[in-house]
């Protein structure tokens, strides 16, 4: 019973369980993206990630031409709680290597 529970993927949340203690990619609302190591989650997709890199798309203005363009802003956060209602998708780590 336990073996089956730990190994198989029957529903989406199983895939997230198998990503615990691994680095995952999270796409958030408002053009935000997170990469970090997953330590906790629940059925609402609330999560705790560590060593997080957040990438955010922002509208910037070119100082020479005055034209608007889409740039990215990055920041690093050691330990972060993410509220699940802002999550669009979660991508588990690549297991190709």
């Amino acid at each position: 019973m336990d073996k089956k529970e730990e190994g198989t993927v029957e529903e989406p949340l199983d895939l997230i369980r198998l990503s615990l203690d691994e680095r995952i990619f999270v796409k958030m609302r408002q053009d935000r993206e997170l990469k970090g190591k997953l330590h906790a989650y629940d059925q609402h997709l609330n999560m705790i990630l560590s060593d997080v890199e957040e990438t955010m798309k922002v509208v910037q203005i070119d100082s020479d031409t005055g034209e608007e363009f889409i740039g990215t802003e990055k920041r690093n956060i050691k330990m972060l709680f993410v509220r699940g209602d802002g999550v669009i998708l979660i991508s588990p780590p690549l297991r190709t290597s």
Partner: protein
Amino acid sequence: MLFFSFYKTLVGKEITVELKNDLSITGLLQSVDQFLNIKLKDIKVNEEEKYPYMISVQNCFIRGSVVRYVHLPAGDVDVETLQDHSRLEAREQKKVQQQAQQQAQQAQQK
């Protein structure tokens, strides 16, 4: 339940709550409830000159649903325990689901 219990272990610690309107409030966690509503004391809004709305406020209540992120004190977070609890809760959740399915099937057969 997992995150409610987790936040209770952080009472008295300093956290930064980032809201869905870009306001970031740093303060000591005073209490939390099952909806992850949060009460903070001795607060300071980050970039206060830009966001001066709470200058005369020291204690506040934040509705859980307006929270985007919470920046946590890494040293006070036990990741091993969190991972164990996440697995446990996933298992509990599945049991509840299966029971509900069985009951629905039985009800149909009748």
